[in-house]
């Protein structure tokens, strides 16, 4: 018994331990950068739609607006705003890394948290401005 056991894999804990594993902050921001980048890629279609509708005249523009103001349209546009703001802020973080700054783990974690907080704040601010432009809900 003891012999067979010593040949098999030792009963050590798995690493990363699958049940008590906490995502490092830098891992979260990294995958979110990629996900938001892909989201924004599809967002360019909405941007083109908006510009084309504006160029075609009031009727086409009204049609764009009826989709954009629909609750689902608002949800998509809210997602687009979060993605753009996060990706832009985290992109600046990437650019600092590219020139060699901010690599210390504690710094990278801190700037990651800053990106999360500022993303939240800016997104809310942008939507407050947008709703004020629309004159209410």
């Amino acid at each position, binding site marked *: 018994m003891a012999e067979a056991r010593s040949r098999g894999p030792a009963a050590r804990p798995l690493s990363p331990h699958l049940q008590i594993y906490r995502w490092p902050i830098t891992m979260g921001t990294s995958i979110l950068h990629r996900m938001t980048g892909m989201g924004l890629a599809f967002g*360019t279609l909405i941007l083109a739609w908006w510009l084309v509708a*504006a160029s075609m005249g009031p009727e086409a523009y009204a049609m764009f607006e009826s989709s954009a103001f629909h609750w689902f349209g608002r949800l998509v546009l809210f997602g687009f705003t979060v993605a753009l703001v996060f990706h832009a802020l985290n992109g600046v973080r990437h650019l600092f890394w590219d020139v060699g700054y901010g690599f210390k783990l504690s710094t990278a974690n801190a700037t990651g948290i800053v990106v999360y907080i500022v993303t939240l704040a800016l997104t809310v601010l*942008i939507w407050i401005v947008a709703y004020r432009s629309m004159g209410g809900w």
Partner: protein
Amino acid sequence: MSIRTPLGRVRGLGSAKSGAHHFWHQRLTAVALVPLTLWFVWSVARYAGAPHGEVVAFLAHPFNATAMLLFVIAGLYHMALGVQVVIEDYIHREGLKLALLLLVNFAAFAVGIVATIAVLRIAV
């Protein structure tokens, strides 16, 4: 611009022999997009729900038309470079990879031309 090593150049090595160029243009467009994104987000928030006439008047202004075109073009170029990396990371079947790379690049050109014509129709 080339930031490849002399030895790499002599040997003609590198995955697609243009990795540094790709990397550099991803960063070039990223830097350009920082001020453009600030301008874009702010402008759209201010003109949300505005009457068609006001939106058109905004886009007809030469400064705004120029900024919008720069945002669209820099954004789509950056997008195509970025999505290429994502495809190359996850798709390893040659045929599918090639098809997706074609699709992304064609889509970037098509969306870019459509958006550019729309802005020019308004502004010119």
